[in-house]
């Protein structure tokens, strides 16, 4: 049995793979953020178009 584990540098694989994984996930992340931004803009447009809410009645009646 060779005791080679102590000399292995597993961290290299973690650093190298980040670019690959980032490229892999960038599309879905970008797509999701675009969708979120779209939903936000539609919501704000709806809020702009809706009439102002009435001022709350502070008399307690």
């Amino acid at each position, binding site marked *: 049995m060779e005791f080679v584990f102590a000399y292995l540098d597993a961290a*290299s*694989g973690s650093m190298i793979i980040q670019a690959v994984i*980032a490229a892999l*996930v960038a599309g879905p992340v970008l797509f999701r953020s675009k969708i979120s931004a779209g939903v936000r803009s539609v919501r704000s447009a709806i809020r702009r178009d809706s009439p102002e809410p009435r001022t709350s009645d502070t008399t307690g009646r």
Partner: protein
Amino acid sequence: MSEDGPSGRLLPRAASVEVEPASWRDPGGFVYRRNGVIHRQIQSSFAAEWEHFLGSGLHAKLVERGMLVGHADAKLEDAFDGSAHAVIRPEPIDFVAYPYEWTFGELRDAALLTLDAQLEALSQGMTLRDASAYNVQFRGVQPVLIDSLSFERLEPDAPWIAYQQFCEHFLAPLALMATRDIRCGRLLRSGIDGIPLDLAAGLMPASSRLRLGLGAHLHLHARSMRQHADASGSGRKARLSLSRQIALIESLRSTVSGLTWEPEGTEWADYADHTSYDDEATRSKEAIVGAMLGAAVGGEPVWDLGANTGRYSAIASGLKRRVLAFDIDPAAAERHYRWLRRDGRTDTTPLVMDLADPSPALGWAHRERRSLEERAGDGVLMALALVHHLAIGRNVPLPMLLDWLAKLGSELIIEWVPREDAMAQRLLAAREDIFQRYTEDGFQAALTERWVQVDRVPISGTARVLYHLRRR
């Protein structure tokens, strides 16, 4: 007389200054206690990073948002040794709990906090240089980063140096807990560097390869680490643009958020709905516990041992006590955590703990992570409906049980559950009855060595009795 300081220098031995045993890995600084007060020394070698962190506004923003523990500046004369650039006094944390003691939700919220801090750091041109789960602690149910020295300036196009650590400390255990078995969280106790990714990938269901986040951050990641393990140093040449790194962190965030687990169906998560108490007994027990807690003079926090979903922890927090609520069942503790989060409570921290096999000391020289006993103070203990589980269910002799409890707190509110009780009978039904000494007389005889009886009150409508004890 002298001793080696973290910087390797020989230092005058001062009885009032003690280096935190877990704080020696970081060359940028370390934690020590001066007259019992936590201090952190920032080394001269880390001065530029530290000043940039403060000057960038990132520190103030993280502290303001409750993401990072705050600190007060201390005098340089209070430094541990001459290699200090600055000395700070971080806000103290009540109780240092470890990731293998957290519920699923706590581990997930700690992971999300770490990722949010990294996203915030990236927006300010900085980065988290480590993503250890041990850098997070809980104030009530709010996770907070405690290592102010984890931030450094981002080198252009550098990959995230803490990516592997994040995946091993957070993603791998969460994925195993969510997709395989909630008890996989205990694997964190077997090594303080988290769960190795190749081990996690091997244990995960095959279907997890088809999920984009888990497939990439766990399986592909583990494979790459195996493939490049003998390519020593080649990782230093890797490049990752800022926008790609943000996508990587956003993807991790989405993957972690997508890991869910429903805490139902276990014996103890449903215990509150299936106890042997009727309404009258429950009211009686609550009143007695409240009165005993009100009369207790022990320190904080209150340790509720066997807290289940926190019914009696709530009585303690109602009396303005901070509470650590321990339970063996991850489902019960998780339900407790969710209720506290939903109600916005900040005074109670649920933790998962098998009291018959409590957290041991771990790490280098058994000193990096302290055992449960080493973290105990002089608080008030509650051990309600617990004694029969340990004495009958786990064969712990009563004198040993009461002796150990005396090491955890200065006052004890403990419920005696007699042999004829339905729940004790349930435990006895499954085993040979070798518990002839399990009697209230035996209990009273066992407690006298370590405890003084302050009060003894029977619970109405039951044969159970509540004792209030004070340590000798």
